[in-house]
């Protein structure tokens, strides 16, 4: 299998000496091309720290991240992050089209007219035709997150790192957005890594779920989700294989939670 992203013995500690807080304790896993992998873990296990290390936004203390075989020391080209906090990730002084076009700010060989067309195309792909000239703050939360996703795709990404992208939208919108993300991942040949605390979402979206332990966090185990690429909000969630996977993931998270000492998250 063609490995796109690989973490090897990734560890991260904040502070030094006796005050040091060991957040990541040596995480190893790999994501293959075209795969949709979810990462779940108990609260406070350092999911965001892990994602920032994978994205090259933050250095790990030890261990390595490779993207397409090359070591990640800074944000590599071809990786896009969709942040949870869409309202603070979009630029309120830019129209939605300009926000999406800004995803191509460092893409060479495209005229500004071509970037504009591409932005338009991406906005249509996320279902926002007619909102190009509006501003992000004129849209609902779910729509704002669509703009951020369109911007990520426009940046010519091949790997989407999704940092709890749907945690702040309402339940019905979340279901629509899950299906939209799955559809976009296939259409634009994106490899996806979803970090979430929502076990149902992790299982519903993924081909494989990586379950993390509590701090110092390592990979507890991986759960393959053999539900095929086509998912359905009603039938998939009733499928015995879905329920079994959900049960498995929830059990391990519960056991690491009950084993957790009483510390502030």
């Amino acid at each position: 299998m063609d490995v796109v992203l690989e973490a090897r013995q990734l560890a991260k500690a904040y502070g030094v000496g006796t005050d040091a807080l060991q957040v990541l304790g040596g995480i190893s896993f790999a994501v293959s091309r075209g795969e949709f992998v979810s990462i779940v873990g108990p609260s406070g296990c350092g999911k965001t720290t892990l994602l920032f290390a994978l994205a090259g936004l933050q250095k790990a203390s030890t261990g390595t991240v490779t993207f397409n075989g090359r070591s990640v020391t800074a944000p590599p080209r071809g990786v896009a992050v969709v942040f949870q906090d869409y309202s603070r990730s979009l630029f309120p002084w830019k129209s939605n089209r300009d926000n999406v076009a800004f995803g191509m700010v460092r893409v060479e060989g495209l005229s500004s007219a071509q970037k504009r067309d591409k932005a338009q195309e991406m906005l249509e792909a996320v279902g926002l035709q007619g909102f190009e000239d509006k501003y992000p703050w004129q849209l609902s939360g779910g729509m704002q997150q669509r703009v951020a996703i369109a911007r990520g795709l426009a940046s010519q990404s091949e790997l989407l790192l999704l940092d709890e992208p749907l945690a702040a939208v309402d339940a019905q919108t979340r279901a629509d957005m899950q299906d939209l993300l799955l559809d976009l991942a296939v259409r634009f040949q994106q490899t996806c890594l979803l970090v979430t605390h929502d076990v149902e979402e992790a299982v519903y979206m993924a081909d494989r779920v990586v379950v993390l332990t509590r701090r110092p966090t390592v990979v507890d185990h991986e759960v393959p989700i053999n539900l095929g690429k086509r998912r359905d909000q009603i039938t998939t969630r009733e499928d015995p294989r879905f329920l079994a996977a959900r049960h498995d993931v929830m059990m391990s998270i519960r056991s690491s939670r009950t084993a957790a000492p009483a510390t502030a998250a």
Partner: protein
Amino acid sequence: MGSFRLLEILAGFRAIISFLIIIVTWQSIASLGLVPEKYFPSILAIAAGFRDMMMSGELVSAELRTISRALIGVASASMLGIGLAVLGDLFPSFRRGFAPIAALVQPIPPAALVPMAVFMLGLGPKLYAFIVILVTVWPPYFNGVAALASVSDVQIRTGQMLGLSRWQILRQIKLPAAMPEIFAGIRYASSISLIAVVVAEMLAGHDGLGFLLIRKAFAIRIPEVYALMFVCAVNGLIMNTIVNGLRWKFAGWQSRMTGQAA
């Protein structure tokens, strides 16, 4: 319902209405003789004083000098303030080193700077440039530093993920994000710049509104003194309109976002 409509129409003209109220109150106090007319001239007398100064040409030349000094001063001070704030953002050690200097110089009133500036720079245009810049650079600088430091980390990470350098992030993300707050500083600076210019002209000038005001006051030309005060007030409006126009261009998104008028 009818009275509600009337209120709405009145609200549309509120600036004119408050101005009329001031005029009417002023005129009534003057004509009732509550204060000696010599020191509190009627609107008509003030208008006549205004007309005389217009006819002689002294008002226009004084006004042009004063407003251009204030405008050039506040424009340079804003550029300088933004430049220093950017430096402070790129080099935190510069910001820390500059902080005590700022804390020391900022509270000096414009009038207190005039004697030193006269010794150093004489009575020419350098005097005004020095005084205006020294008193108006602070609001854009401090607002700039605070606003650049408080740009959302998610926006900055977005820029990093898109492959932008530190400088590009500053220019394309942090500065636009900081513009509304910087303009709040410029707006404040523009009103102090008018004060600073008039004070400097009063103390050390040989032209401009401040100089004319002092001359008319010593000549006990009371209506002219009042007319010049009105001109100073109008200058404030002119300055505010210019700054608001620029703010709308560079930071108008914030007003549109929060739905408030400029």
